[in-house]
């Protein structure tokens, strides 16, 4: 048995999420699909499960072509998908979660369902309390519930999208054991991940995706450097002219512990001086975003201290941080940075802070035109922000940050931008750096990290495992550390 995907295309507006992807997965192998966030893995798997429809391409299971126009078709064909955030109904009982969407009879036979749940769960060594609401389950248990349900429904193909996000180490071990035994039984198992070490640990074969295309395929084990290179592209570092010497410390984070949802970071410390650029490296969700948010005053540390330019701002409000010259530029530009529906001119106004009650329309337009010219934004003062491209949204966010900002905290400053835009953004950032601003940024782009940082802080599951001098490290070393390994 094998699953064949041929020449799959899928675009969302101008974005080509899948650009001619072909892939073949054999039964009995654990097949990894590796790639950074945004590489197009999830889109591909959602197409395979019927959740979204491809624009073009062919899918065949065991030589039989499949038409997947809804998840219902996927389930009928025996394709089961475990979504990254397990799609369970939190207030419903475990049993109801197990039963919903199964069977056609009107009567809901919970007793038969309970027996089926216990039997299926028993096969894999899961144990559930069928009447507990699903919200009391850990993420790992929710996954186990979904796996049990999919197999009970007769899935022959199991797709797991980033299944290790938010589960414990023990649960991960259990999960991997189960996947191995399922593959050994002759099932088709596709394991989607951006975590190199997991693919290395688990998979027999791996396909690497980048920017909507398949960029490589390999039997496992394979050298990590090669996989990293496929994932991130070749690292070409040109060294930048030596920056001016650093000044006084702007931000001093002293042993803070942060807690958000499932992740706890322990005892993070970092100090950033004027004119310094610190890059935060690591797989997504390793604690970089939390550190940025804590440094911006948006996330309160449970312990430790945060000092800004010598003043202790621990547990002070976000606006005190703003006043101290700290600015946070989030990755979700339209979600938490800009206000869809408002124009460029209105954003420039909002960012200028309190300057009188009335708005001088002409001056505001002039101001906006100035920002548009300075930051080369393609748009007019009257353009609404959602009509701007991602690059122009980022330029606007930069334009909204006051020139005298002491510290810029940026999350993926160039994500989704074309090379030209990205270079341009960095030119402006370096200008600010030369004038004495400090910059801390998180990125998934090794090239960007190596090229622009003075120091790189590598995160792994909530800890800053290593601080590197960017001028003395290599893409290879960084790739290893990101994957959770020390270079021996």
């Amino acid at each position, binding site marked *: 048995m094998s699953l064949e995907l041929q020449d799959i295309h899928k675009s*969302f507006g101008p974005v080509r999420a899948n650009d001619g992807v072909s892939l073949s997965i054999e039964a009995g192998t654990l097949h990894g699909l590796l790639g950074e966030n945004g590489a197009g893995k999830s889109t591909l798997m959602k197409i395979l*499960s019927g*959740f*979204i429809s491809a624009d073009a391409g062919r899918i065949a299971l065991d030589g039989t072509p499949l038409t997947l126009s*809804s*998840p*219902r078709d*996927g*389930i009928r064909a025996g394709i089961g*998908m475990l*979504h990254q955030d397990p*799609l*369970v*109904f*939190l*207030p*419903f009982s475990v049993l*109801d979660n197990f*039963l*919903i*969407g199964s*069977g*056609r*009879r*009107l*009567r*809901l036979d919970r007793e038969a369902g309970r027996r089926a749940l216990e039997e299926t769960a028993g096969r894999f060594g899961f144990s559930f309390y069928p009447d507990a609401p699903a919200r009391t389950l850990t993420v790992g248990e929710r996954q186990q519930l979904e796996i049990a349900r999919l197999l009970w429904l007769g899935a022959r193909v199991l797709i797991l999208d980033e299944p290790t996000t938010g589960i414990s180490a023990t649960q991960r071990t259990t999960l991997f054991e189960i996947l191995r035994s399922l593959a050994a039984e002759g099932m088709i198992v596709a394991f989607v991940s951006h975590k190199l070490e997991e693919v290395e640990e688990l998979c027999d074969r791996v396909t690497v995706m980048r920017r909507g295309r398949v960029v490589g395929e390999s039997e496992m084990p394979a050298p990590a450097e090669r996989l990293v290179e496929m994932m991130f592209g070749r690292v070409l570092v040109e060294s930048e002219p030596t920056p001016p010497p650093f000044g006084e410390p702007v931000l001093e984070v002293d042993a803070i512990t942060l807690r958000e949802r499932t992740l706890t970071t322990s005892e993070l410390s970092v100090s950033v001086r004027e004119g310094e650029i610190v890059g935060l490296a690591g797989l997504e969700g390793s604690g970089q975003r939390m550190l940025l948010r804590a440094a911006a005053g948006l996330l309160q540390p449970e312990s430790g201290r945060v000092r800004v330019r010598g003043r202790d701002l621990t547990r002070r409000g976000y606006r005190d941080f703003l006043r101290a010259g700290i600015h946070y530029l989030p990755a979700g530009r339209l979600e938490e940075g800009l206000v869809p529906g408002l124009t460029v001119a209105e954003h420039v106004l909002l960012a200028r802070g309190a300057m009188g009650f009335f708005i001088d329309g002409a001056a505001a337009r002039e101001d906006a035109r100035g920002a548009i010219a300075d930051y080369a934004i393609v748009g007019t003062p009257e353009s609404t922000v959602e009509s701007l491209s991602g690059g122009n949204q980022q330029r606007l966010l930069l334009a909204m940050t006051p020139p005298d900002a002491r510290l810029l905290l940026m999350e993926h400053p160039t994500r989704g931008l074309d090379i030209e835009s990205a270079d341009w953004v960095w030119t402006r950032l370096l200008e600010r750096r030369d004038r004495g601003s400090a910059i801390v940024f998180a990125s998934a782009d090794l090239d960007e990290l190596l090229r622009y940082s003075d120091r790189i802080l590598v995160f792994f599951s909530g800890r800053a495992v290593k601080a590197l001098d960017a001028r003395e490290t290599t893409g290879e070393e960084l790739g290893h550390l990101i994957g959770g390994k020390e270079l021996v």
Partner: protein
Amino acid sequence: MEATLATIVASASALVYAVVGETITEKAGVVNLSMEGTIMLSAMTGFAVAYTTGSVLLGFLAAAGVGALIAALVAFASIELRLNQIAVGFVLALLAIELSSFLGDPYVGQHGPSVRAVPIPLLADIPYVGRVLFRHNLSVYGSYLAIVVGYLFVFHTRRGLEMQGVGERADAAFARGIDVNRLRYLYTMVGGALAGIAGAAFSLDVKLGWREGLTTNFGWIALAIVIFGGWNPIRAAFGAYLFGVLAWAALQLQPVFPSASQILALLPFPLMIFALVLVYLQLFRDLADRHPIWRRLLSSDPPSGLGTAFHRE
């Protein structure tokens, strides 16, 4: 005492239909805010049709049809046009009220047919319970049926579980092969039809006859009771009966405070809202969290997907 309870049960029957109907609609994730107008217009329609044809049954059917039609509009605007359910529901509420006044003008003050009383043979003879519950008419029995069937359907059938799934987390329901938007149309219309039946129950049974503003405020209070009822048909029905008790008590006080009859008639509405606010209070939530047995009784989490649209892209 039995007579009093029997009166309350009978007078609450119309509201029971409405709250069970809206509970079903909201369980599927749609807010039909037009209740006030739906009940009013279907009360008028039900009476007019029954008066013209002489058939109470046709009156109820026409009223259900009106309710389903308005609900279909809410669903269409939300699902196909992605419009705000609140806005559309609100406009439809006001429009339907005005329509009921205009179209109902010729029927004001007319004597029309009403639902006949039919004691249920054996059950009516049960001491006490029989007198309270089983010496009514078909409309009242129908309201019991709505509660029981509504409850069993929502919590004990496969389709009911799917309906809850659609309202709770549409993408998860979709991933399980459930046609989210088709079910939303269906259950919004079923809920609307029940609200329509509530209207007919007012004009053909509880309040006998039609006049402008016959059901004023009952639609709004039905919306509040659905929340009070924690999206459970039985608890919602309990809320409707509680409201019936308050209304009855207010009526009893009228001879005592003759000058205050107007305010007494209005009193149950704010009282009901206060009850709702109480349920919202943290105190009760904590209580429900600490004692799982109370959870069914006190918890009031709305379906998570309430009021949102599902687009697959």
